[in-house]
């Protein structure tokens, strides 16, 4: 993602560019983390479903 993508055009001001970089980096990290935890929750649900099915089968 470049500056234009987030609404900033180059101005030559290093602080503004650095700000844009910080925001971009933060967004990428949050997105990645969210993805990881969504996956973990999915896996947790699958684990519980499998356990229950296994227990039912064993009991039968």
């Amino acid at each position: 993602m470049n500056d234009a993508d987030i609404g900033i055009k180059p101005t030559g001001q290093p602080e503004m560019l650095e700000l844009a970089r910080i925001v971009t980096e933060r967004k990428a990290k949050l997105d990645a983390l969210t993805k990881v935890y969504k996956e973990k929750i999915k896996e947790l649900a699958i684990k519980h479903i499998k356990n229950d099915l296994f227990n039912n089968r064993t009991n039968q």
Partner: protein
Amino acid sequence: MRGGFKEVYLESDSRKAERIEVRKPLFPNSSGDEVSLASLEKTLSMMERAEGMMASNPRGAAMFRERGDFLREEIKKRRTEDGTGKETSQAESETGSELLPEAAREASVSGSVDLAKGIEDVGNSVVGAEKSIERAGVVAPGFKEEARFLEKDFLTQAGEIVADSDQKIESLVGRGKQEGVSEEQEAKSSLEALVPAPEEPDEKFLERANSIVSSIHKRHNPTEKRNGLALDKPVMAEKLPQFQETLYDTMAKLSSRQESLKKMTPTENVEVYKNIEEALTASRREVYGAGSDPLVNQEERDAIIKQFAHTNQSREFFPNNDSRVRKDAFPYAQSLFGVRSADSPEARAFLKKKIESKNIYLFGGGDSVVDLIADKEIRARSITNLDPFVSVERVEKGQNPGYQSVGERADGKDLLKTLKERMLPSADEIWASMSVPMYLERPEDISQLLDNIKELLAPGGTARIYPLEVGRGQDFEANKAAFLAKIKELQESEDYNVYLAKFADHLTLFIKRLQTGASKEGAAESDKQENTGDVIDAEIIEDVRGGNPKQVTDGAKQITEGQPDVVDAEIIEEEKPKPKQITKGKIAIPESTG
């Protein structure tokens, strides 16, 4: 002006008109629009939700609370501006350098919005997964609880990411100013201003101090992980040499101060109660139980001893470089006192102040604190381990005359009576590390434990319990309710304070018996005496003199078995005759049972 900075073409006046007309947000939402008021309000509600979920983690909760406060301010500001049309008139006078602080503010707001989006996404995943489980016709009672923990993990990590970026942004704005107080001066003055308030418990001060030290370190080393850095760690002085003196001075202040605690206010009590309730609710430990009192039979006791043998029973007192960062391995000094390194003389001086000449009880102490018992410099007056389930204790412990092991349950109904018969003093310190009430299974045992703590504590004494959990037993809710009822009782009493601190990965609970009335006036003098808690009546001692109380060792081999009871001998030797009366500060045993 907030938000919607238009374009950042600022070099020439000829662009100004265009800049005003082209309303392009600096940090837009996913559709490229300015973050709307509605979106900010939604973000605020997500922050409030996150704060609620982090109630058992005060630091995490504070992080979301601060973010919420910031958003409330932003929403208020925006509503005012929308009504005044202030935005346009300000825009005309903006230059690049003037934009930076506002841009930074906008960047912080957008961080909260992004964070809220993540929280919402993860929350929706949980709801979706629950629906899937329901559709599959499956019974998954533990899912919700485990998912909640995942959500909390997410909140912690996501919050850290946004906090990191906020710090970078702050630092950037600071650089842009090129004036005012330097970071170094600012950090140093915040450390110098770090003086414990007169009524602030040492532990709360340490918790606050460690948080400030960590944030200063982070400001100076933004890319480095904090990794448990704290005021008392010599490594901090190495990392921040410019603050070396201040760091040690602050720790030294703590060592030399005398706490002057007053009864906590009802508002403070409500907050603590709420946090305790949240922490208990969130605890989900699947623990081995300690059975009930009395145990049914010897087989049951043997089974429990065998179970506990699989747990870590040999935690040390002092932190060292080898201390594993495992939930059940936090050294006592860290989890109960907030000291993460005892390498500096200042940290040792603080621990010495807390321990020297005190009568200490370990509740379910297992085979722990051997290093403290062997320490030549920091000497407690006595250390008594109440643990009916310890399978073996290291021989070094028995070599210390101040140590003894008593095979009694901390939640035993007759505990106080037994201690009285054994001529043991009331407690200046009670330490429960990974033991009770975590392993207790029944509400009545939990209630009894807290009654025992209340009665056993000497004025000025402190009980430290880590982690703040109750056993699940058959009815977790009943256990929780029993614990909370006793906490309320303590809070309503004029003689006790209850407070929390976070020094390890869970909360530590402190129950402090206050110095009251005449005993308070005499506190300073009493502190100079070598023993503040030894209040056994001379006459009671006389009654049992000559009898060497038996070690209770049912089912457990205890190394101290058969050794002379040196603590008792010392008490007898030193105790001068006193009038017979049971007053506050003695082991208060109801007349009917005494």
